[in-house]
């Protein structure tokens, strides 16, 4: 109960801090929504008029807290550039970015755990070395470059998908998923390589512990020792890593959306920053922060399920 309260406080503080810093950042960088919309040739009168209309003349804290208050009640304001409700714009794009993030995360887990087990099991065989080297290579490639590589190999050569041929979820869900698989691979591979390596090292060090010897002394086979005893212990540091990786995956998906021309939050965020479209930027950043925190909360709960020693803390 205490933990839930603690986490909720963290949640609120983080969202407050993140949005506040974004507000400050926009104060500091030159240019505003009015100059962005009217261009450099606009008359000072026209600029002043637009600023008045957009509410930019109000003091900084008034603007921040009025934004915060309306955000709290679900009103994210109106986009300066498009003149439509930010909420409806984002609601439409949320499933795209969320699906990409979740697919990347699931892929990371689904790839790294079996391979981690495999490499630790055959640590002194050739297959393990091959996987180790592949992992090392994958780890050192930045996701956007991997994205270009994936586009080239799977799109241009193998024709498994049409680069740039994104289909939205409300048009054809199967093709939507089919298209997102490839950007998800680009995001997930480096992360999967890291968590594979972590799981392997973790398993190998767990195997030297005393309880493993006890398990063998009761007549367990090597497989049983691995699955019934070692795995649950070895997975704990990997969960920590995956939790931290999630923020990375969200950030990675913003970049990858550019590479694969996916109309998700990433592209919207970049164009909105260029247009000084504060309401959109604020809302996207607040939502991403919330997603990251919620998933971290889930990881924390998972921790306590896995490790009884943490339950009393």
């Amino acid at each position: 109960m205490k933990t839930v309260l603690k986490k909720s406080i963290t949640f609120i503080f983080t969202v407050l801090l993140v949005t506040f810093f974004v507000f400050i950042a926009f104060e500091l960088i030159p240019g505003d929504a009015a100059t962005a919309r009217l261009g450099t040739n606009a008359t000072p009168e026209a600029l002043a008029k637009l600023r008045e209309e957009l509410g930019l003349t109000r003091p900084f804290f008034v603007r921040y807290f009025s934004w915060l208050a309306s955000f709290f009640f679900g009103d994210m304001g109106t986009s300066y550039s498009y003149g439509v409700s930010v909420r409806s714009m984002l609601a439409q794009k949320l499933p795209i970015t969320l699906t990409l993030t979740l697919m990347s995360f699931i892929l990371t887990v689904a790839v790294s755990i079996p391979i981690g087990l495999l490499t630790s099991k055959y640590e002194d065989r050739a297959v393990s070395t091959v996987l180790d080297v592949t992992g090392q290579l994958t780890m050192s490639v930045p996701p956007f470059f991997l994205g270009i590589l994936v586009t080239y190999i799977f799109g241009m050569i193998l024709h498994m998908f049409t680069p740039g041929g994104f289909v939205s979820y409300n048009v054809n869900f199967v093709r939507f998923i089919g298209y997102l698989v490839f950007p998800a691979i680009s995001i997930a591979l480096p992360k999967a390589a890291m968590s594979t390596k972590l799981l392997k090292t973790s398993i190998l060090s767990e195997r030297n512990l005393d309880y493993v010897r006890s398990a063998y002394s009761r007549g367990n086979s090597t497989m049983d020792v691995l699955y019934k005893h070692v795995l649950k212990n070895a997975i704990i540091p990997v969960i920590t890593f995956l939790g931290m990786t999630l923020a990375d995956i969200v950030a990675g998906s913003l970049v990858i959306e550019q590479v694969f021309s996916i109309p998700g939050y990433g592209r919207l965020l970049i164009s909105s920053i260029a247009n000084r479209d504060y309401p959109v930027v604020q809302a996207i950043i607040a939502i991403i922060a919330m997603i990251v925190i919620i998933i971290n909360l889930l990881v924390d709960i998972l921790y306590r399920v896995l490790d009884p020693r943490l339950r009393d803390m």
Partner: protein
Amino acid sequence: MLNVTDLHIEIEDSFIPETVVHDFDITVSAGEIVGIVGESGSGKSMSALAIAGLLSRKDMKKRGSILFEGEELLTTPRSRLRQIQGDDIAVVFQEPMTSLNPVKKIGWQVEEALRIHSDLPDDELKKAAIRMLKDVELDDAENIYDKYPHELSGGMRQRVMIAAALICDPKLLIADEPTTALDVTIQAQIIELLKRINREKGTAILFISHDLSVIRSLCSRVVVMNKGRIVESGSVEEVFNNPKEEYTKHLIGSIPGFTKIAHVTQSENTDKILEVDNVSARYKKITGYFQIGSKQKLVVKNASFTMYKGEIMGLVGESGSGKTTLGKTILGMLDDTEGRIVHYSQRPQMIFQDPYGSLNPTKTIGWILEEPLRINTDYDKEKRSARAKEMLSLVGLDESYLSRKPNALSGGQRQRVCIALALMMDPKLIIADEPVSALDVTVQEQVINLLVKLNKELGISILFISHDLKVVYELCSRIIVMKDGVIVEQGTDKEIYDNPKDPYTKQLLLSAGYTD
């Protein structure tokens, strides 16, 4: 039942094969308790693990014969070996703290061997596990069944390990230093438990220990090992009363057996060196953002005593009694303390229990020894190094050790370095926190003699913190007994040992086997 002949164990490490066990022979008949005794590195645990089929590392080569009930275990396939492991041969290990899987419930681990070796349904397994837990004198068995290892004390965990080992009613129980990590009173209970199991169920026990007095009280026959070889074997009476080999004589001679090291006399000096007046210490537990320190645990409660110059004073208690905390409090290492501590000397020093963890493994001994001088004095390099050399030779190590790193040293050598380190600032008071507990008996004796020498020659007063009443008896002239953070009794050695007033002191003496 068990017949081991000519067992050799070789480690093929870094191209040079090293034989760690030579010509090992042992027989254990049904229902018998046989002991293997030796110091660390003697190969006793290695031999026992080989018998249990637990030495399967690829770089270990085994030769010879291990016959168990007529079956050759060295050549038997793994699948057959697994049928024997846990069912006919079971093992209890030294470290109850780490030998249980931390993320699995006690019940699950106790029933594991039975689950592997039988087809019993879950409810039958549970019944058997609870029966077994009760059998090892864990009264609250139903409750413990659903607990996790970290919720139990060391003694309870060792009982759980024994229950897990005995659940299939094995013919042979291999107990590898099962009491070494436990407090004396708990040690005595575990030994009694093993005796009872042997008597009631007829389980044969192969008991491995470095502790000769434990072996003596439990076993009928004993094998003495040194450097991978059997030095001597025979019945316990024969070996203990009439040892033939030099090494055995030396080993038996090193057992602290409630004998005073002759030249320790009570200090007649009445100059105080330390006054502790009504001191309490607590640990804060951070429980949340807004409740820092709301849960406090009082670890030392209203302790008062006085130490005089040139005295060796014993501070006795079991783990969790607060004796280490009191030591740290005296040196000002803790923040949240109350009461008055008056030092009549400068720069008192502390020596810690674990000589392995106390020295930075990446630095040379010279660097480590000079550190206090670098921080506290303006001595130049030459002066510092001269002092380090001098202190090393005082603790019996030559100057070649200056350039070595801690890993290249044995436990006893490391503890000497720790003592030299404490001496660097020329203290008049040393607090030694279990300085010999992690060491072998023969090495223990050397370190104790060294402390006595420092006391006699340099006049250093020592507050000797220990759980071992025999060692304390050897060198202390006055003794403080602590339990649950409270000093229950203090007095001269005669008063404490021959006329204990507090029931806890009496119990401690009884567990340690002290008879007037």
